[in-house]
């Protein structure tokens, strides 16, 4: 399943306040200054609440969270493991 659209919408509304700025799915959210240290916490809360998952400490790494593509892949893998439809 592709969550990219939902993630794009969340980031657009919550961090960019509606200003798309050509946000690419493979762009690093940290390097482009889209989210900062507290933004990461917001992103994690959003993922946990929206998808009913718990993100473990060792999963909170840029490889899982630092771009829409990375988050999408991470979500797919995570939801597959806990048995939800991917």
């Amino acid at each position, binding site marked *: 399943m592709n969550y990219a659209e939902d993630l794009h919408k969340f980031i657009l509304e*919550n961090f960019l306040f509606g200003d798309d700025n050509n946000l690419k799915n493979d762009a690093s959210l*940290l390097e482009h200054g889209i989210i*900062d*240290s507290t933004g990461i916490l917001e992103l994690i809360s959003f993922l946990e609440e929206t998808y009913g998952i718990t993100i473990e400490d060792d999963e909170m*790494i*840029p490889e899982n969270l630092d771009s829409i593509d990375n988050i999408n892949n991470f979500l797919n893998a995570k939801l597959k493991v806990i048995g939800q439809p991917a």
Partner: protein
Amino acid sequence: MCGLTGIFHINGPGNIPLDTLKRMTAVLQHRGGDESGIYIDDQIGLGHTRLSIIDLHSGTQPIHNEDKTLWIVFNGEIFNYPELRKQLQDDGHHFYTTTDTEVILHLYERDGLNCLNSLNGQFAFAIWSTPKKQLLLARDRMGICPLHYTIQNGCIYFASEIKSIFMEKKISREIDPIALDQIFTIWAPLPGFTAFKHIHELEPGQFLQIDKDNIHLSKYWHFPIDPRNELFDDSPEELTEELTRLLSDAVRIRLIADVTVGSYLSGGLDSSGITALVAKQFNHDVHSFGIRFEEFDFDESIYQKQLASFLSVHHKELSVSNSDIASHFSEILWHSEKPILRTAPVPLFLLSKHVSENGLKVILTGEGADEIFGGYNIFKEALVRKFLSRKPDDQNRADLITRLYPNIFKNPSLKNSLIKFFAQGLDQAGDPLFSHLIRWNNTKRIKTFFAENLQKEIGDYNCIEEIRGLLPDHFDTCSTLMKAQYLESSIFLSNYLLSSQGDRVAMAHAVETRPPYLDHRIIEFMARVPAVWKILGLNEKHILKKVFKDILPKNIIDRPKNPYRAPIQQSLLTAHNSEFVESMICEAEIQKAGYFNPKKVTSLTAKLYGQKNVNEVEGMALAGILSTQIIDHQYIRNFPTDPNCPLKLDIMIDNRSNS
């Protein structure tokens, strides 16, 4: 301190509107309501409101020289005036007051512009030479006292505060889009800029000499940055000894006053050290003042109590609640005259009121120590990131970042992501602005709230590029720490801390603050102290801690630095304040003022009302947007050019030929 103002017809005689000059003077009376005076002739008008501190009885300004050919209005203090006065008397100069003001005038008479190099103090003044028909405006080295000016219609209008200049109805009042770009990137306008188009501020250490033939605008002092090959090679013990001597003298001369001098005591190292020096070396009857915050994370009162008892000083604390901050936010903007991204000036505004109600008008502060001795986290951050940049994959080096920000890293699971945040731009370790680029790039995200029209007006302007162009020639040869200290001191210290959080909020209640750490002798000395003695490993202000080790309790010296901050959204978005905030930043108001995108601002406030985690940049966005709207409301749309503040003149010198 005091307030000064004036109008000068540059090209020759012209009508000086006395009514306007009176209004320009009257609106500054909060800076000192003890006395006021005016000088007027065919070419110039000078106005002054006085906060009497030295020579309470005969120091009424404007003050003149022996033959009344030179006239001065002055705000501030010259701390070395007793020595200068003696030299001048030996040279045959005659004084009719015992003020420091008169000393400047005679020094100028003797040395011309060179007089500026002899002054140790905090000051802004205007000297009018009647034979030369020439005006001199000057400001102290670090910009502790303010001085603004604009040149329009063949006249120069100048004043301690911009509101005084705006009393001339012919002067247009417009917010400068470039200044907004600067504030929303580096937290303050760049030196020389104000929030308003065509209104300039004399830069720290700058003077303006002007007559019909010439305008000479120049700096007589630059914030010193010594190249690595010119640093002291003395031992840390020798350096500590010399610094102790300098600091003690800086405090001594700042206690000169004909009124009681008190002290701010925050509980941190800097103000504690100053208070301890006063209590131990000069005066056993010290009155200190501190802030207590309702929000636990911001409160340091436990340390204030400990110090007050340790030093046996009379300490008074003022409790500040979130709603106090909210209810006075608008009032402090009337004084700061520029949008701000913080609320921290408000508690200091309330504290100066408390000081004034307790009958004091002079206070020593610890301002400047973090810049001069290397106290800020941004300095350590630069050093660690520079260290990491040499081996970016070294996990041990990366882990040092977590020690810098224990609060941010208190959730250990976020470590990797946060380290990535601080590792941004490691490839720019050679960039002269390396230390500050993360902060500025992060802050400028707030510009996303700018309206399209504002963005168009700003155009290609890039304030970070402008800063590059302003760097001194040998900047590249300095250490990473010295570069960061320079940026912090020349941008944020003078244009925000000493202004919105310093002079303006203190003088709002006629309280003069004196920061001994900003004595230029200390700044020049510290510029030559090697970086390693400022920040040893990750221990900030190492040498200053050595100075205080015998006069402060060990836990105060060892406690981690806690920067002075005040809550933003927790205070601005309180229930009791919501009506006011709504009236200022509702879609219709945002649309009317035209600076911001109404839809985005609405999304921001909606988000902040429900937010659990405090996001610093979004908090700054809220403060910046709200304060810009309030400044627009106060200074652009509803400015009172006919204020109802009567002026009782104690002195009126009218040298107009037709008077």
